[in-house]
């Protein structure tokens, strides 16, 4: 039957053109929208932290639930670089000890990462004190706070692209990094 082949080709074409291609396009648009959404939410979160000088548990929770609204799974990395002034030390051969060089100092940053910040916001329940609540993570003026967000799961668009193009595509579609200096401190 000569018609059978053309019918099969036609069915494949119809499925591809009427379903797969428009859906792929729609989902790609959705990823773009999520990217802008995640960017604006991250900027909002970081700016409020920079202006306030602390991260309150509800601020962070709010931010997480806003990200969750996009339906993707994200890896969030927060970095708090704490500004420190250290003395400059020098090895003194005659005394065999490190001695501070007077009048000199060193500016350095000490980083604290997501795990420690989250531990402060949402502490492990302590059996002796089960009602202990998380407290705001405080920073000082001059410190730097940076958040970077990357999606972990393959978005629907990536999955369909993999199907159409027939190759493995890396899942990272939404990546945002934003940070800045802390402008105020809580007291």
């Amino acid at each position, binding site marked *: 039957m000569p018609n059978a082949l*053309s*019918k099969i*080709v*036609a069915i494949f*074409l119809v499925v591809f*053109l009427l379903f797969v291609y428009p859906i792929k*396009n729609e989902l*790609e648009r959705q990823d*773009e929208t999520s*990217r*802008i959404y995640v*960017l604006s939410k991250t*900027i909002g979160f970081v*700016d409020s932290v920079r202006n306030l000088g602390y991260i309150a548990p509800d601020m962070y929770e709010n931010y997480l639930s806003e990200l969750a609204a996009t339906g993707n799974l994200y890896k969030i990395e927060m970095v708090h*670089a704490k500004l420190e002034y250290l003395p400059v030390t020098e090895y003194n051969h005659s005394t065999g000890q490190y001695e501070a060089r007077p009048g000199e100092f060193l500016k350095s940053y000490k980083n604290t990462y997501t795990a420690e910040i989250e531990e402060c916001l949402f502490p492990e329940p302590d059996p002796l004190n089960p009602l202990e609540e998380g407290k705001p993570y405080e920073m000082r003026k*001059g410190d*730097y706070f*940076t958040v*970077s967000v990357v999606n972990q799961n393959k978005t629907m668009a990536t999955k369909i692209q993999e199907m159409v193009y027939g190759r493995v595509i890396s899942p990272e579609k939404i990546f*945002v*990094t*934003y*940070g*800045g*200096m802390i*402008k105020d401190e809580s007291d």
Partner: protein
Amino acid sequence: MKVTDLAIAFILIILPSTLILDYKTMNTSLAAYENVKMVRILDAAVEDATESMVSVGVSDRVAIDIDKGYDSFINTLYRNFQMIDDEINRRTVEGYIPCIAAVDYDGYYIMRHIEYERDGVTEIKMAWMPKRSYSYSDDRYIYSLTLGNDITVYDKYTQQIYKDSADNFIASGTLPGSVLLSDDPYIAGDEMHDFDVRRRNAIIECLQKDITDAINNHNNIAKYYGITYYFSLPTVEHDDWMKTIDDVGFLAFFQGMPMGNSGEYANIFSIGGARIFKTSRFYLDIDGTPDGTGGLVYFYHTTEDCPWLKPSVRPPEGYPMRDHAKECAKEGYFPCEYCY
């Protein structure tokens, strides 16, 4: 020809152009997104620079530390690019910054790339140029302007230097024949108003000239960074220039960075003001306005020219002023519905 054949022919014709368009749209929207992100990042960097640059020194004089400002600026930029310990990429990013300007009360600093010889090798580095003052000159005088009303004047005839505020000069008539302080008959407003317009334009002109110089010069530098972008001063609205010189501030340009692979390049600038000199003022209407039911409403106004603020009853010493809307409200005044 069957319908399916027609459909296949249609697809063969349409598909390539659709795919190409699709690809281009994706790249363009990525470029647009990158641009939004870069604008935000640059704004944050400039904000941080202004924040850490300004310190209030002895006797309430504002001192600016340009090196501190630059440190914060570049630090925030590097943190946003996640290259805090990536020396080579940091140098690359520097190539995209043709010019930075710090606006001080009585002059401005420009940071640009300079070439210099060291051990027989030419090196390129970003460096602050010496402070330039806001200068203006007419037939007889050379002026050094400030962001406020204080001016320093050199008289070419008598070779004397005067230093005072513009309103005192106008009141005392120390500077006969001064163009800067004269009243322009074609513009409404008194001498002070005209002086303010001329002062602002002169300051903007000075800044513009040096910034354009630095950006144009960057075309010679950029080739060493491997940047093939033609650097030129981006369009800055007149209002944005006005905003720059309202106060001590920081101004940064960021150009030539490729945005995705659509052939678009970043071409942005950011302005940060420290909000020290020009605080907002609110004028109180002490006489009150009839509210229509026989009572009086008291308003506070943002400008002295507000028509609701009756010019006929202006007290000789001027309307009482407050710095914050809060203070006005505490004293029982409402915001003016016309100008607030």
